[in-house]
């Protein structure tokens, strides 16, 4: 779904390139009869990237400065809410999300990807709340990229750790059902990035459309109460995307069968 609208970035002609090209008749529509994604979506995505990277750099510099203090003061937490404290709370929260599903070494392996994914989706979604900005996640292109990234991550982990048991897991429990189970399991594997994409896109797109339609009907400024629901939906959808990625990684890792648990304890 390709939603369009006004955005502050469209006032810059270099970013509003696609609209200008359409008006000049130079646009090649490769999807006949459909709108194409416009170029100003990428400006919003870059803004979210810069916010995440800026906060991360400020937090990291503050942490480096704090660890250079002498003696016992090195371990003190800062008393006010600055970027370092927020990053520590955030990292603890993400690790709490991953703790039930992955073991300690895997948490350290996947933490950069999951934490970056959550922060990026969060700041992308939250841009839709401010007047004049569009969330880049209401466009399907942004979400396909992220979902393909998650798809590649969990397939690569499954195939690199233990490729034989990964494929054998897809064939089901009993051997003579493998001719039936393998296509079904492969289809359900393929549907995972599709469902991740469509869930996030449709949530953001539908949210924005509901707000637009209500604003047309009700007097000016009345639907502002919907922004609370929109905030909740933004945070929850970012959480659901990253939690599902962690669950898919957990499902791809070689886990022990039921027979081994009898030997463990």
């Amino acid at each position, binding site marked *: *779904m390709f939603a369009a609208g006004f955005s502050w970035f469209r006032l810059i002609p270099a970013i509003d390139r696609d609209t200008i090209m359409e008006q000049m008749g130079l646009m090649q529509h490769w999807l006949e009869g459909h709108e194409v994604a416009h170029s100003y979506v990428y400006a919003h995505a870059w803004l979210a990237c810069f916010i995440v990277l800026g906060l991360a750099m400020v937090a990291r510099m503050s942490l480096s400065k704090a660890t250079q203090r002498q003696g016992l003061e090195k371990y003190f937490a800062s008393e006010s809410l600055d970027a370092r404290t927020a990053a520590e709370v955030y990292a603890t929260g993400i690790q709490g999300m991953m703790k039930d599903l992955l073991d300690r070494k895997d948490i350290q392996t996947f933490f950069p990807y999951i934490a970056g994914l959550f922060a990026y989706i969060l700041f992308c979604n939250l841009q839709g709340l401010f007047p004049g900005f569009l969330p880049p996640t209401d466009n399907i292109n942004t979400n396909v990229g992220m979902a393909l990234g998650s798809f590649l991550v969990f397939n690569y982990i499954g195939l690199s750790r233990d490729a034989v048991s990964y494929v054998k897991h897809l064939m089901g429990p009993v051997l003579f059902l493998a001719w039936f189970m393998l296509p079904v399991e492969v289809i359900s594997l393929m549907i995972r990035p599709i*469902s991740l994409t*469509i*869930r996030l896109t*449709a*949530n953001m797109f*539908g949210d924005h459309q509901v707000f637009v339609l209500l604003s047309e009907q009700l007097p000016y400024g009345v639907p502002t109460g919907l922004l609370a629901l929109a905030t*909740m939906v933004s945070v*929850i959808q970012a959480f*659901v995307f990253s939690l599902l990625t962690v669950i898919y990684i957990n499902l791809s890792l070689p886990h022990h069968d039921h027979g081994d648990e009898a030997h463990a304890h």
Partner: protein
Amino acid sequence: MKKWTPVLAVMAALLLMSGEALAQDGGGSNVGAGITMGLAVLGGALGQGMAAKGMYEAVSRNPQAAGALNAPFYVGLAFIESLCLFALVVAFSI
């Protein structure tokens, strides 16, 4: 049979009226999208109601569990709602 009478009556009404409804020549109106989204939201609302029912029963049995159950409750609601939104995608494509 008596329990199913309202459901059968609604189904019969839908079957008899649907041909005429879809043959309407309303300029710009889209009955297919409306029916798609309406049916999807029917199932989705029932599902979310069952999730909320489970949550209330659990909290009423064990009020201290409310803090721990808060986050999984909203995550479950988001999963159920995403199924309705798959139908929204179809409704917008029609």
